[in-house]
Every structure is written in C-alpha cells, then in structure tokens.
C-alpha cells in the first residue's frame, strides 16, 4: 500500500464528476477521520461536500488530485481513487 498522502487520477467516466459520482465521493469522504481534499488545478475543495465537488466542474479527462490530512484515512483515499478509476461503474 502506498504511503503518500496524495494521489492523482484522471476522470474517465463520460459524465465527469456529476451529481451521482460527486455524491459517492462525498459519502466516502464523510467517513474520514480528518479532511479529504479534492484538487483540480489551483482549486482545492473539501471532498465531503457534493456542492463543492460540483463547483469544480470536472469533466471527462480532467486530472484531479486527492489529498488527505491524516494517514489513517489512506483507505478512504484509495477507495475513492479506485472508484474514479473504474469510472464509477458507469
């Protein structure tokens, strides 16, 4: 298991980070002990907020970075990364 506190991933699902996928990420991030951040370009938002995620307007092909404050949240980070990589099963 990787010990970095941030990982990059590219959005592959056609719709990008739309309502359902954003809700999915937010739900997972809400279980974290500390903050989970979603970063796109210069913008950095709280991944536990669906509205914040939507405000980044990540379309298909956008590169995003997920970052955690506490190492104990590494499983949540990996889970979100896997989900994005699988295109949210769409």
């Amino acid at each position: 298991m990787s010990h970095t506190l941030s990982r990059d991933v590219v959005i592959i699902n056609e719709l990008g980070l739309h309502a359902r996928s954003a809700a999915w990420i937010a739900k997972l991030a809400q279980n974290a002990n500390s903050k989970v951040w979603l970063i796109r370009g210069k913008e950095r938002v709280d991944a536990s907020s669906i509205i914040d995620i939507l405000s980044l307007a990540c379309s298909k092909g956008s590169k995003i970075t997920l970052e955690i404050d506490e190492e104990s949240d590494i499983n949540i980070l990996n889970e979100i990364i896997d989900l994005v990589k699988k295109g949210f099963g769409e």
Partner: protein
Amino acid sequence: MSDTNAIEIILNGIGASPGICIGKAYLVDKEGVDVVRKYFIGKENLRHETKRFKAAVKKAKDELRVIIKNSNEELCQQSYILETHVVMLKDKMLYGKTIETIEDEGINAEWALKKVVSSLKSMFQNMSDPYLKERAADIVHVSDRVMKNLVGAEALNIADICKRVILIAHDLSPAETSQIQLEKIKGFVTNRGGKASHTGIIARTLEIPAVLGLDNATGIIRNDDLIIVDGTTGTVLVHPTEETLVKYEESKIKYEEYRAAIARRSHLVAETTDGFQLPVMGNIELPEEVVSVIDHGGDGIGLYRTEFQYLSSSVFPSEDELFDKYMDVVEVIAPKPVTIRTLDINADKAITHVSECDETNPALGLRAIRYCLQNPEVFKTQIRAILRVAAYGNVRILIPMISSYDEVCETKRILNEVADSLDKEGAVFNRDIEFGIMIEVPSAVTMADVMAENVDFFSIGTNDLIQYSLAIDRGNSNVAYLYNPLHPAIIRVIKHVADVAREKGIKVFMCGEMANDPIYMPILLGLGLDELSMNPQSIPAVKSMVRELNVENVKLFMKDVLKQTSATAVMKLVQDTYGSLLYDKIYHE
C-alpha cells in the same frame, strides 16, 4: 356544491389535453414558500433557531428516504437523483453555511437558508457546462423541501394525495409530476405552460384533461373547490351551478362514449368518405411503446427515435445492443413498417457524449446527421444494426436534419459501404430498405426537388421546421405564442414539399406534432400528405376525423386556406368549416 353561495366563475386557458373532468381541486401551491419573512433572533435564542433548522433538515431527509423506499424499479433513475438530494441536504455548503449564517448574522433560519441558496444558485448558473448549470435546480429542490418544513406549510407531497382530485398548480416540474400517483389525478390546471409543455405532454399521454396557461388559476381556485375542467375547449369552471354541472355531466358521458367508440374503430383503416386510405402511424422512443401503438390502432411506426439508447448509458451502445432494441420493435409490429430515425442529437437533449465543445446555439449547431457524418464510426454502428434488423421486417431508414444535398449523398455512400461490409462478412441483412429524409430545415424545403431524386420518401418534422422557418425558439416564453403550425408560411412550405414529392413520384409523410391534432386533418389531407405519424394516444381521434373527410372537398377547401394571410384567419376558417364536425361528434352525437 361545497359552497352553495359561491358564484360560478369561468376561466379560459389553453386546452392542452381533451376531455372533461369534474372534481375537487387540490392546490399544489409553492407561493406560500416563496414569501420568506426575515427577522432577527436574539443571542439567547440562536441555539433554538439552529435546532429548528436541523430538525427541518432531518424531516426533509426522512421524507426523501420514504420517497426513495416507495419508488419502484422503473424509477431507479429518479431515485438516484433523490439519493443525491439526501447527500446534498447535509452538505456543508448548504447545511453548514446556513447554520453559520444564522449564528453570524443573528437571523431566522428561513432567511439564512434563502440567502445561502441564492448564492449557490448563482454560482451554478454561471457555470458553462450545461449539465452542471442544471444542478442549481437540485439545490433549489432540496432547499424547498427544508423550507416547507421550516415555515410549517403542509408539506407538499403529491404522492400523498389519497382521493381523486384535479391538480391545480402554478407550473409542474418533471420532478413533481414523476411523484404523482397518476391514478389519483383526474385532470391538470396550471397558470403556466401550453400545449407543448411538459404537463401538456404528460396529460395527453395519460389521456386526462388539462387546461393550462390560465395565468392566475392558483389565485382564484381554492383547495377543495368543486371545479369542472374541459380540456377540449380550454375552459375551467369554478363553483359550477347545478345546471352547469348537469350539462357537463352529460357532456362527459358523451365524450367518454365517443372515446370508446373511436377506440373500437381505431384498428380499422382510416378511409375518407371518397375512399382514400391514410396510414396513421405511431411515434415511439422506447421499444416498449410499440405496444401502445398497437393498442391505439396504429398502422405502423412512422418515427422511431433512437436517441434513448445513447442517452441512457454513458458509453455508446454496441451494434448488438442496438440490434436487440430495434428487433423488439420490428418483430412485434411486423409486417407493418417501422421507420427508424438515425441518431438525432437534439438541442434540447443534452447528450453528454458530445458535449466536448460548448455551443452557444445548439439548435443551429452540431446536431443529428451533421454529428453522425463527423463521427462515421458511431453512425456506421447504428446503420449496421438497422440493416441487420431490416432482414426481419418492414424497416425504413430516416435521416434527420438534412440541410444540403451533399449530406444525402454522403449518407448513402456510408450506407452502401456498410452494406458491402455486412455482405462480405456474410451477415444476415437487407440493403434494399426505403431511404427517407426529414424535412425540417428550410434549405431542404427549397432543395426538395433535388433531394427527391435520391430518396424514397420525405418525412416532415413540423416541430423543427416551424422553429427554423419562423425563427422562433419554442422554449422562449416571450415568443412561444408566435409558434403556430397554421402560420400561412408553414402551410405554404408543407404544400411545396408535398407538391414536389407528388411531381417526383415519392411519398411524403409527417411526423411532427402537427399531425397529432384532428383539427389539422382537413389541411394535411388537402395538401396531399401520404402518411401521418403521431403519439399513440392521438391515433384514434385522428383516424376518426379522417373518416369524416372527403379528399375532393378538402382540396377545394385548401384554395380558401391559401388565401388567408394570418394564422388566426386560417384557424377561424378551419374551425368554421370543420370545427362542428369535431366538437359535435364529441359532445352531441
């Protein structure tokens, strides 16, 4: 009858779905929520205020949970939207911010929520991605629910209606209509909307009366008022007198008898009094709808819209998936024809696969055949599926949005290429299928004589043809009133297309909304249309009207129609000449 002292009030609006219903009004009124009072909260009461807000959110969450639990399998698309709403309720941008605002500004929860929502709304509305723009509506929806709980208004839950009522609303959103238990609704009355509005379409599909565009129905009609809705004439009567009630009860029975009578005869061909047989077909979008076409006596499928398979999943459907869907339709309705329209990415259907580039004016942008010719692989997959399914029934192919002759030639070239490769693979297919184009762009009308040389049929798509010819965006409420199929220019345009088709010996069909309305039949028959296709519910009434007409007479009648200089004058002429035929049959036979 609930209030014998009340005076009978007559309201006139747009009859969007025919029929009569009599019953109690049920007001779905959001106005009460729109009026939000602002007041300050003393420091000592702030805790109580945030608690009140949290309770309203919790209640909203519970309500949504119940709705999700009760929605059936078919609505799973809906329920994931509702799941998203549940997550949004507790979102810090909405939930956290509102609590913060209550505490920081010392204001009541309603006002704080309103403030937070309007700033979120403007943030989303400024986004360029059309999909995300739409999400503002989700936030409003979620906050409305909380707001209702805060102001203590009886939570509007259409799903809870337990008696059969007539729904009165300012306007009904698709989200609201999706919740309605439709068997509980006798009719619709709204302030806004017209024939082409969402509510109008729903009402016609359900075959229940609707009068829309009444401006102030919600201001005049009270909950539980006894009302009569006549969707045929566009009249609503509030507090009817005994006399009126009796009259409408009789009309209602007659109308129902008439519906039953035309439904019984709907399976027979529509033949005019002088022996001309007009095929009356159904438009479908989902394979399942083919059953409705058969039930309503359709003579085939005049328009099978194929976008749904592309919209419902996030990857393009495979050839086999398309083949299976088309097969469902072709098999069921054979030997009657199925007209498959190739992918028509529409301006009003945001298709996510192609939203790579933002278009400021999608109606004039990369749509339909233009998109297909730029993405030949997507197009070829669909054509392969169509040619293969053509081996199992009577299949025609219809190309949308043709605006130049080159597009016709290029499409045919691709069609031949696909057929050759299927041949080489030894696949079961049929390359000799009728090839038609949609006539919906004015340039195609002008070039109709050239187009006719290379196609087997024209199908006039009135919705777009009218929009493009009259330069009217139907969705724009400032100009929607100008949208009129009876505009003399539109009648001339259709006449030109029909004349060219006849001269060149090809067939001319119509599959737009204009074909749905029995009152237009004298004109469409008079212009020489060879076949009409419409939503399945309209088939019985259209067939019934056709049987009353005489081709020689309507041709003569067209001479008068062509002399008219305005849509109003044309409508008056049609009503005066043939209106009685329609209404007398309904109410007085």
